[in-house]
């Protein structure tokens, strides 16, 4: 179970680190290299994004990575093969991240069965709110997998409760409005919002959007359980190559 893994891990670490890659960007070989280095550097969980042509919630960095990956032939099938390979070689939990249409076209139940078969632990689907996700939730439950839900600073207390009634594993808290990959002010407002999130659920809280350096992660210690680094690792790899991923992770934890 994802939740118990996280809680167990938190006994020895103040905050866990989750990173994100777009599978097949810049290539599957590079993706593998990045995963390997990140796991060795001490990353606790990883999001594997199946690229989608219309990634509405993603900012310019991840958007371009999605497009490039698709252009380079990253299909859903190849992503499954890649995910199976890394989840059998490395012991940390891997999650899928994608958009609703990828799961819908594959079939919600079939997708969840496939996840179970290749040992993925959960999925983050930003454009599938609980109201639209009945089939998805049912399929994930059947296989004891975690649908990861999202809280935002705009979400009312009432709705935080509603969402947490469907959540499993952990909850992903958006640090701010906007899309992925822009700067975030790590301020008192964020702390107030995170305490609202904490009240709404007993699940561990992950914080993402704009987390990119050691100071950000230090700020989140004691306020959240998981720091999520998304666009920044993609930027580092773009600037310095896949070989720089491990060193970057070591520099921030």
């Amino acid at each position, binding site marked *: 179970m994802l939740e118990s893994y996280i809680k167990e891990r938190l006994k020895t670490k103040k905050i866990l680190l989750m990173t994100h890659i777009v599978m097949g960007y810049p290539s599957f070989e590079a993706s593998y290299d990045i995963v390997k280095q990140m796991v060795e550097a001490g990353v606790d969980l990883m999001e594997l994004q199946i690229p989608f042509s219309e990634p509405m919630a993603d900012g310019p960095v991840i958007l371009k990575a999605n497009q490039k990956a698709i252009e380079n032939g990253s299909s859903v099938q190849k992503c499954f093969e890649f995910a199976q390979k890394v989840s059998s070689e490395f012991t940390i939990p891997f999650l899928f991240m994608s958009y609703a249409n990828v799961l819908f076209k594959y079939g919600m139940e079939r997708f969840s069965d496939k996840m179970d078969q290749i040992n993925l632990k959960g999925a983050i689907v930003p454009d599938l709110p609980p109201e639209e996700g009945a089939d998805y939730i049912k399929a994930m439950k059947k296989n004891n997998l975690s649908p990861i839900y999202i809280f935002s600073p*705009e979400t009312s207390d009432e709705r935080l409760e509603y969402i947490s009634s469907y959540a499993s594993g952990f909850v992903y808290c958006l640090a701010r409005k906007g899309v992925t990959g822009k700067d975030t002010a790590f301020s008192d407002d964020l702390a107030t919002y995170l305490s609202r999130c904490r009240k709404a659920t007993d699940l561990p809280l992950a914080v993402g959007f704009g987390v990119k350096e050691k100071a950000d992660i230090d700020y989140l210690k004691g306020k959240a359980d998981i720091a999520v680094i998304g666009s920044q690792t993609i930027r580092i790899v773009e600037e310095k190559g896949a070989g720089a991923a491990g060193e970057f992770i070591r520099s921030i934890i």
Partner: protein
Amino acid sequence: MKNRGYYGDYGGAFLPEILVATFDQLEQAFEKIKKDPSFWNEYETLMSTYSCRATPLTFAGNLTKKFGGAKIYIKREDLNHTGAHKANNVMGQGLLVKQMGKKRVIAETGAGQHGVATATMAAKFGFDCTIYMGEVDVLRQRPNVFWMEQLGATVVPVKDGTRILKDAINEAFRDWVTHMDTTHYVLGTACGPHPFPEMVSYFQSIIGKEARQQILDIEGKLPKRVYACVGGGSNAMGLFSGFFDDPVELVGVEAGGKGLNSGMHASRLKSSDASCGIAQGYKTYFLQDDDGQMKETHSISAGLDYVGVSPILSDMHDQGKARFESATDTQVIDALKLTMQKEGIIPALESAHAFAQAFKEAPSLSKEDAIIINQSGRGDKDIFTVAEAINDPKWKEFIIGKAREYNA
């Protein structure tokens, strides 16, 4: 998210969490104005004083004679301010924005008509305005870009994805998730998450309301068929909604591009290339591959060049409540030329799709029958595209001369 706007299997609100509160607020505001008769009065007054409503229903005597079948009527949405039906939706949403107290509007645009209409509305109501437009469309619709900028809007060319309408929509959503406190997204067509399909259709229903009354006044009976082009589907929804309860055949005409077998088209409902999917916040027929990745679309008209279609029309398609056809780029140019020469009317390339289909069918209808074609917009914006398609040597000479002047 209590009401999610389903039409059969289609529609819904596949929203990122960050936008849920904004959509709840929008839906509440829309529900309020729907119940308020004074709002519709205010809207009609605005449209009759700022735009040109009621737009005429023109009898096309020469075209009728040429085809020798049904009497052809043209609903003149081209005579709206800014030259297209887009004004109906934009001014309605503008009044709504005033009520919600927001100060900035954003919009996507394909052909540029919706962008120009939004920039006009923003100027009139004193809103800041940013328009997202695919880079490909910026290149093929320069005159509209010029006007949007002159009207005070910022035009952002979208360089991601296929660089056309759908990519402009994605980019507008990305702006919105950052600035929803101050900003309203004036979605231009009857697509997207609930309540947009319903809300846009609601404002466009003014077309059908007028057209129904006008044809009854002239002919004393209902038309046999009505024709509208279908990109996102807002002008079609506008016209069709006037005849939902009548024995009138509703015909939607999609962009056949280089032909339905060419893979170079934008036909979601007539071709068998589309399937049900979820993107841009709603469920409908999309032109997509087996993995659910959206395909490239093609049309001579930027305004019909879109991967999805109104969920309301998808449902009408499945229910058999409307018939969908397609017209190729070549047929569209022929129909446009004929309409200009016979009637002195210049339809937009988008609208010319509806004309092309009506011309195919008119001869086989009785002389007692009447049909209505929705001329959703005027064609002078398309001068560059049309001149190129017609291959007019004098136009080329003019452009070359102009270029020489600028280079001198």
